[in-house]
């Protein structure tokens, strides 16, 4: 018989003639034979020689075949040692006893060598199959262990990156499985130099490490650019370009990006391919869907990528709720999806905004959905600016090369204004002056206000009174985008002057624009403590900077910053 390997076969049979006959048959078929005349001998022989297969007589003195089979199966453990009962038993009850004792097959007397050979061959196949299964199981277990270890390491590295942000800020609540990263879910949050908060909830295609590898570069861009003061559009463009460059074509990242401005009381949103987020206005209990208007990050080329965002007003206490598709794609036993409708029902039934997460989780459980580990939810609420304390920036240079007496002027013209945000560069330059670092947040906020005033009201001629209500807010930002797209002429000039003063120093910031100016006197008449800091943000500038003044019919603004001797 080809391909049949020689096995060691134990024959346990009390009848000497039967034992002899069977030994001959088995030997002639090319196997090694061990013999035993009773159950005790059989178990003993199995222990010492570990045969591959056992031919076992049922009725034997001292210890019968049933007991011997049980003991051998126990000793064999996970390894399959097939036991073929030798029997002239005909009653089904007796045959059942053989099976219960662990028998795998029967061979009736009188022995038929052909049938015996076939049975040995079949049992050998089964035995090998079992061995292969065990081997592969162990291999899989090993691989799995290896994989888990890799994930642990990757997660530890990633957590260092992810948690360098401000997910622990008091206005953020989130829910994520500890290994959500390996389902491609990504949650990041960080403060901008102006004290705004950027939040990203992303969902990479795929699972496991491939889904997680894109997270690192994405987080790096997010944190790097947010810390330098870039706005959402620049950050989005850079993230998209980076992912497009490094990810394979079938991989991309659905993402919602938020910029929460506590000073301006607004939220800027970009949603590429994520489920609707919700802006919950507490006063009206209305939930405005923040719908995906873009393709995910990493799909479009930098030339075709659309970084346009939407801006909505918020009041203190209002919340933005974002979720991953794991929530609405949770399935029940009949493959039914949880769906957006059910989510809205949970919203409708929600009385305590703070217990929304728990209510969604309960609804998912009640729905009969299996607990998925790719459910991510985050809720960011708008607090009073003073309730948040953005972390102080850390600088590593010694200060020996600090520039203390210089001035610079810039003119940003139409083609540049369309695409380029100069603020991060200006801020970076100014923060070379050590004395300004302590007030970097105020400095950035003022620069940002002056620049956006010059651009939006000056160059683009937008009317700030539009922003009085929510609909106007949206219209304002729509007009801003349209006018910026169509912009042909105009400029914004920025003049910076740094001078030493005693042991400290002074910075004078001047911003001019090519617009038609505004009625300075009328705007400055307004009280300084407006509840909603919309409009020209002039109050903000006056609060944060010193000696703010406007000239040239509002086309030119000037603010000063001072610092004392450094400790």
């Amino acid at each position, binding site marked *: 018989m080809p391909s049949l390997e020689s096995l060691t076969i134990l024959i346990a049979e009390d009848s000497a003639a039967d034992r002899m006959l069977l030994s001959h048959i088995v030997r002639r078929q090319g196997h090694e034979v061990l013999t035993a005349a009773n159950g005790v001998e059989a178990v003993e022989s199995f222990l010492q020689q570990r045969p591959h297969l056992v031919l076992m007589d049922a009725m034997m003195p001292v210890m019968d075949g049933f007991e011997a089979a049980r003991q051998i199966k126990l000793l064999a453990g996970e390894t399959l040692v097939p036991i073929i009962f030798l029997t002239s038993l005909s009653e089904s009850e007796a045959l059942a006893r053989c099976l219960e004792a662990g028998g795998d097959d029967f061979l009736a007397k009188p*022995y038929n060598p052909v049938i015996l050979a076939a049975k040995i061959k079949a049992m050998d196949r089964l035995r090998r199959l079992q061995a292969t299964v065990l081997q592969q199981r162990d291999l899989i277990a090993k691989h799995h262990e290896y994989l888990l270890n890799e994930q642990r390491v990757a997660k530890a590295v990633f957590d260092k990156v992810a948690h360098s942000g401000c997910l622990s800020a008091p206005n953020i609540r989130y829910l994520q499985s500890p290994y959500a990263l390996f389902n491609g879910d990504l949650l990041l949050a960080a403060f901008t130099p102006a004290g705004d908060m950027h939040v990203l909830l992303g969902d990479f295609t795929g699972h496991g490490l491939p889904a997680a590898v894109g997270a690192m570069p994405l987080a790096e861009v997010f944190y790097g650019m947010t810390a330098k003061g870039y706005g959402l559009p620049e950050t989005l463009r850079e993230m998209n370009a980076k992912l497009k460059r490094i990810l394979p074509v079938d991989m991309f990242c659905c993402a919602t990006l938020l910029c929460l401005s506590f000073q301006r009381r607004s939220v800027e949103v970009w949603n590429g391919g994520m489920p609707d987020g919700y802006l919950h206005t507490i006063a009206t209990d209305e939930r405005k869907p923040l719908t995906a208007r873009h393709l995910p990050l990493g799909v479009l080329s930098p030339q075709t990528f659309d970084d346009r965002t939407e801006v909505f007003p918020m009041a203190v206490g209002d919340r933005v709720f974002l979720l991953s598709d794991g929530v609405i794609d949770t399935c029940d036993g009949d493959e039914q999806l949880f769906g957006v409708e059910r989510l809205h029902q949970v919203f409708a039934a929600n009385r305590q905004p703070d217990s929304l997460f728990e209510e969604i989780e309960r609804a998912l459980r009640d729905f009969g959905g299996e607990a998925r580990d790719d459910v991510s939810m985050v809720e960011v609420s708008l607090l009073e600016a003073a309730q948040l304390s953005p972390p102080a920036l850390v600088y590593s240079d010694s200060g020996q090369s600090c520039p203390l007496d210089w001035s610079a002027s810039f003119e940003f013209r139409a083609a540049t204004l369309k695409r380029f945000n100069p603020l991060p560069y200006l801020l970076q330059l100014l923060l070379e002056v050590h004395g300004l670092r302590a007030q970097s947040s105020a400095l950035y906020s003022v620069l940002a206000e002056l620049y956006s005033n010059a651009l939006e009201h000056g160059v683009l001629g937008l009317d700030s009174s539009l922003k009085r209500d929510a609909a106007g807010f949206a219209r304002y930002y729509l007009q801003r985008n349209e006018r910026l797209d169509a912009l042909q002429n105009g400029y914004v000039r920025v003049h910076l002057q740094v001078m030493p003063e005693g042991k400290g120093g002074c910075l004078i910031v001047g911003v001019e624009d090519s617009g038609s100016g505004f009625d300075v006197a009328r705007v400055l008449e307004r009280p300084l403590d407006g509840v909603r800091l919309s409009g020209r943000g002039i109050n903000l500038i006056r609060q944060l900077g010193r000696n703010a003044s406007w000239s040239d019919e509002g086309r030119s603004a000037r603010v000063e910053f001072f610092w004392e001797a450094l400790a």
Partner: protein
Amino acid sequence: MADIHLDRDLLTMLQEVMGNEYPVLLDTFLSDSEERLCVLRKAEDAVQLMNAAHSFKGSSSNMGAARLAELCHELEQCAKERKLADIEKLVKKIDSEFAIIRPLYEAERQRSLSE
């Protein structure tokens, strides 16, 4: 009439399988059977009798002792059903059947040795 007692085809097969060991096998069967007959005669309870009859049936059928295997099967059944009267009758029948086949196996042994 030897066919009731011996399955000649099976014996041919046994000889083929055993080769030179064939006569030893026949010897072993005969001495094995003597022992089993003793056990049958001395059996003290139905279970012992049943097990002995069962084993004897197995080896008889393996060795082509067709009639003997049949009688052992009947004995096994009677022992199971506790038909004491039949048991005695059957043990006697088995005795006499063995007396018939013993010389047949011895002759077979001689025949094979002289081949």
